[in-house]
């Protein structure tokens, strides 16, 4: 290799590194689902007459939701490795509702220090038990309709299980992170991570039933689409 070629190579490399500091891209993550969706395990909410009234046919705890376009809902995707720097927690709260004897949303992401607003929209008694291991665990009663509580998680943890001790079928998962690069697949089976700075990342996809999978991604200024295929 000629001397000139080597030096021009290094020049190019340093240019890429320098410019990448400013570059960022949007990552779109897809969760295609292969195979038949498992039959829902319908729970009879007989223990609470008010839940029974709202769900006379029974409740699907909703561990697996396959969208009409053959994708998987409620997959939590996030940058597991590669994120540098500190990120201020947003002041806007994540709303976590207890409605129709179920949690909404069932899977969500939240930043450390970001307020979690817990609401009871049901005319029945709920309690919310967050089984956090890194942050402080809490178990709070919400006996009155319209009651609100604010809580925060102070340490990252994927995932924190949240359950209702009165209604055992009610379960939700919170992905707690110290950065904003996460998303949850929606009704079209995709999630978006915005403004991800250029660099090398390990992206993980988590699902309640089908576990986790990871991919390494190099981000530049080009928007990318990554697929995490899940199998029944």
């Amino acid at each position, binding site marked *: 290799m000629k001397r000139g070629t080597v030096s021009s190579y290094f020049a190019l490399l340093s240019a890429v590194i320098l410019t990448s500091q400013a570059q960022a891209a949007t990552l779109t993550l897809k969760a295609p689902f292969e195979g038949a969706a498992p039959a829902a*395990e319908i*729970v009879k909410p007989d*223990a*609470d*007459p*008010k839940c029974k009234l709202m769900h006379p046919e029974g409740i699907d*705890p909703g561990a697996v939701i396959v969208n009409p376009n053959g994708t998987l809902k409620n997959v939590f995707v996030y940058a597991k490795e590669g994120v540098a720097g500190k990120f201020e927690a947003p002041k806007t709260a994540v709303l976590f509702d207890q409605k129709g004897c179920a949690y909404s949303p069932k899977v969500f992401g939240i930043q450390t220090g970001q307020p979690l607003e817990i609401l009871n929209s049901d005319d*029945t*008694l709920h*309690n919310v*038990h967050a089984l956090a291991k890194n942050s402080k*665990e809490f*178990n*709070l*009663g919400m*006996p009155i309709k319209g009651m609100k509580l604010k809580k925060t998680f102070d340490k990252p943890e994927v995932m924190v299980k949240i359950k*209702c*001790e*009165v*209604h*055992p*079928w009610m379960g939700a998962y919170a992905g707690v992170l110290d950065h904003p690069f996460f998303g949850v697949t929606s009704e079209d089976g995709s999630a978006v991570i915005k403004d991800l700075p250029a660099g090398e990342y390990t992206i993980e996809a988590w699902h309640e039933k089908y576990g986790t999978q990871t991919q390494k991604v190099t981000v530049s200024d080009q928007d990318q689409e990554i697929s995490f295929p899940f199998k029944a």
Partner: protein
Amino acid sequence: MFHKNLYHYSLFTAAATLILLGAGGLVTSTGSGLSVPDWPLSYGKFFPPMIGGIRFEHSHRLIAAFVGFCTFGLSIWLWRVDRRPLMRVLSISASVAILAQALLGGLTVKFMLPTPVSVSHACLGQTFFCLLCVIVLLLSREWKEATVTPSAAAPVFFRLCCTAATFAYAQLVAGAVVRHTGGKGIEVHLFLAFFIVVHLLFLNVRLFLDRPLTERLGAQMILLNGLVLFQLFLGLGTYLVKYLIEKAAQPRPVEVLLATAHQTVGALILASLILLVLRARRLFSPSGKTSSPSEFLELMKPRLTLTALLATLAGYLLASGEASDLARLFHTMLGAFLLGSGGNALNQYFERDADARMPRTQNRPLPGGRLDPILALWFGWIISLTGLLELLLFVSPLTAGLGLVIFLSYVFIYTPLKRRTTLNTFVGAVPGALPFLLGWVAGEGPLLSANAAALFLILYLWQLPHFYAIAWVYRDDYRLGGFQMLPQRDPSGKETASQIVLFSVLLFAAALMPFHTGLSGVFYLVVAAASSAVFLVLAIRLLRDLSKAKQFVTASIVYLCTLMMSLLVDKT
């Protein structure tokens, strides 16, 4: 003094506590421990809506409050009327325990079920129940007015009970850990279960071999056995549905029921063992008859059994040709020995009154008063069944079946028949002849064959002159014992002697049969014919002089041995 009302009140408190234990168990089994996040109030109220897990958690709190008040009442009442120092300690402990238990319950809710607190809550709950059961026992009429019975086995039984109760308490802790950690330490739990069952078996043996213990503690022991058996099934069921089947969104009713029953029955077993410890201490004094091993040996009539065993050995060797399979031969001999010994022990148990009347037998362990009859009965049964099992497991079902026929016909047909009819000898000759066939079958000789029939016939017919002669020799004894033997209705002995001759003639013919069936050769034929002729001559001599009957008995044994030896030597 027995205080009836106080006793009933304490019983009521203990029963309410058992229900409380069940209710507490339901909270854990249904996973409702955190359905009410606050304590001591429930959602800030005395009565929250009873929905979901709140039903279980709040019911548990309500029952606990009730039991708490019952306990305070009990403590006050006891303090006023019962001045026994132990009772003072117990009554204060009960109130302190229920308060501490309530606090632990509150702590486990506040700190969201930390394992150490939940396990302590579970253990203290059952400890409190045991405490109440002890109070009930100490208030009972039995405890206050009991007379002390001497029992030799009581000290050992007491110590065994203590160990078993200690293991049961350890089992409570292990069980609570398994329950509150979702299956951790289940190996320890199983291991302890094994230990407790083994102790229970020993307790049973000790208890039922001792008459005073059996009379006073037998009922509780049987109940305890039932509880432990039930508990084993519950434990197995809980394990199957909880840890082997995939978890459901909410605990299945069968899971809840099994796990709750398992912990509640566990409490009953623990309490029962503790009460057994105390009762064993209170009701017995360590004295009375002791039994030495030599008495048991005598009970087995080892010489008689060994004689029968020789016939079994001969049968085995005749069938298999040689002792090729030593293990099988060993198991045959051991099984037959145990079965025979057990039969002899049971026979002596049933005839202990008759034996006491006969000079020849009145010094046997049972009539001599050196052994408790109930001990002999159990010993006989255990030895016989062990022998049967030995034959069944290590030899063959057919051998065991034949063993069972010998055992039953000897103990339950021949033994009672001896007192009723002189025909008993014909019946008794069957179990007398069968040990030989037992060996034959064990040695894999065909049961339904001419050879087997010939050999059985020889052994059967041999018994008749042999036992008639014995009956004559001991005719006075048998009369005293109340046994119906031919010489009893034949004072001159003419009929007895004639029968001996008659069967000796038949025996002569039977003795030649193995040659005809092809079992043996000419050598045997010659020896059998010669010895049978001599035996017949000796029999005919008895017609004139029955006083030689004793020598005839000896001669009959020599004669039989000669036949067997020549059969073995000249086996074709």
